[in-house]
């Protein structure tokens, strides 16, 4: 039964990784930029979610506000930071992005150094399922992630905008010659990716009831490991990597594996945050192109 509980917890954590990593993959697919500052939008979403909920009492309003604010912030980052340096070597954008991430985290400190909490935390129920008590907030996060990401996939596959979008990702020059407004696609891209990160930020704040300036730290580095694992730019690979890592972490940090006479406890060799990178290094040694290659 414990194994089932761990599996469920791993999948629930995986859905948060997914909400964050989708945006990163979108940006990488389109611009070939490792968008480290993405995690600052996760934190921004958390702040907006908590503050608006406390001010208005409406969680739904807060969630929408967080998505819009982070989405617009994402578009501004594209316009002011990335667009002017796209022609330079890729490390320029990477370093600029790291700098922006650190500066934004410090910026949150000006708002509230100690972090913010809900006065009356919303969505606090629990759910009894197969002998387990699960937090409603986590279940909601899981389904929100599935619905949003699934919806996005449908949008990309079935609609005109979606086709244009996919064309721009795979063949920008060709797409442009067909009259697709590439710049517009990029803005949409940043808006959607950032809004999803904000959803993750708000959802995590429901279980922790604490949004701090550095809340995005751990997620940002891990999300980068995830998209590299997923083969950079491959959406399917990224999603699989998200859930795989969630489950791997859940088991590795709490369980020991018997190997002959000795117990191998991964949690005793390295801490939780190192596991993602150990996994990454091992995978890259075997498959330098990542788990999945972009189709």
């Amino acid at each position, binding site marked *: 039964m414990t194994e089932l509980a761990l599996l469920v917890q791993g999948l629930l954590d995986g859905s948060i990784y997914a909400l964050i990593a989708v945006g990163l993959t979108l940006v990488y697919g389109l611009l070939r930029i490792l968008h480290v500052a993405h995690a600052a939008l996760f934190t921004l979403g958390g702040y907006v979610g908590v503050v608006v909920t406390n001010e208005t009492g409406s969680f739904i309003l807060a969630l929408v506000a967080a998505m819009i604010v982070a989405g617009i912030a994402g578009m501004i980052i594209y316009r002011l930071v990335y667009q002017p340096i796209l022609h330079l070597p890729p490390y320029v954008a990477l370093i600029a992005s790291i700098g922006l991430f650190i500066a934004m985290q410090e910026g949150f400190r000006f708002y509230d150094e100690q972090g913010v909490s809900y006065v009356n935390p919303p969505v606090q129920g629990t759910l009894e399922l197969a002998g387990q008590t699960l937090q409603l907030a986590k279940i909601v996060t899981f389904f929100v992630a599935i619905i949003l990401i699934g919806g996005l996939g449908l949008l990309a596959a079935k609609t005109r905008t979606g086709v244009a979008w996919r064309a721009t990702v795979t063949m920008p020059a060709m797409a442009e010659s067909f009259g697709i407004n590439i710049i517009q696609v990029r803005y949409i891209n940043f808006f959607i990716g950032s809004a999803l990160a904000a959803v993750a930020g708000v959802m995590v704040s429901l279980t922790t009831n*604490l949004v701090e300036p550095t809340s995005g730290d751990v997620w940002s580095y891990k999300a980068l490991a995830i998209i590299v694992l997923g083969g950079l730019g491959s959406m399917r690979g990224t999603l699989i990597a998200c859930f795989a890592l969630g489950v791997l972490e859940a088991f590795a940090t709490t369980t020991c594996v018997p190997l002959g006479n000795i117990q191998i406890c991964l949690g005793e060799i390295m801490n939780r945050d190192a596991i993602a990178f150990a996994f990454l290094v091992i995978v890259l040694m075997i498959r330098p192109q990542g788990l999945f290659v972009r189709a």
Partner: protein
Amino acid sequence: MRTKLLFAGVLSAGIFAAGMAQAQNIKIGFHAPLTGFAAADGKSAVLGAQLAVEQINAKGGVNGKKLQLVIYDDQASPKNSAPIANKLISQDKVALAISGSYSGATRAAAGVFQKAKVPYIAAYAVHPSITKAGPYVFRTSFVGEVQGRAGAKLVGDILKKRRVVLITLKNDFGRSLVRGFKEKAAAYGVKIVSEYEYSIKNRQFGPIIAKVKADKPDAIYATGYFFTAGPLVRQLRAAGVKAVVIGQEGYDSQKFIKIAGKAAEGVVITTSLNRDSKRAVTLGFIKAFEKKAGYKADMVAATTHTAIYVAAAALKAAGSMDPAAIRAAIAKTTVNAATGQISFNSLGEVQKSVLVQVVRNGNWHFHSKIDDKMLLAPPTK
């Protein structure tokens, strides 16, 4: 920068006739994490120390001189605290210094102060190696192991719980507490069912809690700070784990109750500040701090407040600025301060009773007091 300060100094001396007093202030060095992950504790540390200095100066200072704090931000990192210690010693020329910071930063600075033979008081850092730096280093709070032993007594003897799960914060704070807890657990009939560790950046405890639930413990000894323990306790209760949670002084802040909300009710901690104290000095501190800070007093503020009072008493007794005389005076001093009666043993450690507090109706309240002299004996070498 230095010339600017000098200029400002000359200017103020010209304007105020009492400007001369400026030069005769007694400087007390102070470092705390004003930024970074521990900034909330740093803020309380500084406010507690400032409050003490204001109170002492309002009563005429020490031997006719005013106390003056020289404060630096160490971000709770040993990398920053060692240069700060050097700066306080050779540039600011402080009479003595106080750490309002965590163990890592305090350990690094302790070595520097000892080497320069400048007295140094750690307010609440728990690591045992701090006072071992040498005779110039003192501590006004418990060594981690001592508080861990008190935790074992609390669980086994006072709360009468038998099956315990440890959720350990993976840093010097959490680990030294747990060392003390494990040392005495068996003596109080406490059985450690299993132990899980988490790193200071974790706020999501889903997998650990799933395992804890399966362990069915009577009590959970969870080490951490309010910003890790708040989310942890919240998630434990949300997952339906009802076992009593035992914390330590890292929980000791109103912020813990704010984060954990209703889940905080019934959480018991070992600490050094008693909210329901009848002692005039503690009551006075709690009231004055809330007035100054705009939020309720916590353990960190109480210990830095105490450390300043210890420093002032020693400076008064020493009657000179000679570091060796000040050190000798600290070693001999007995002060009645916000966190209790403070006097030091040969290693510079303090012996006092551990106060157990519990959350009731959204506030910390008195639960019990652990007074066992043998159990709480600090190391002497």
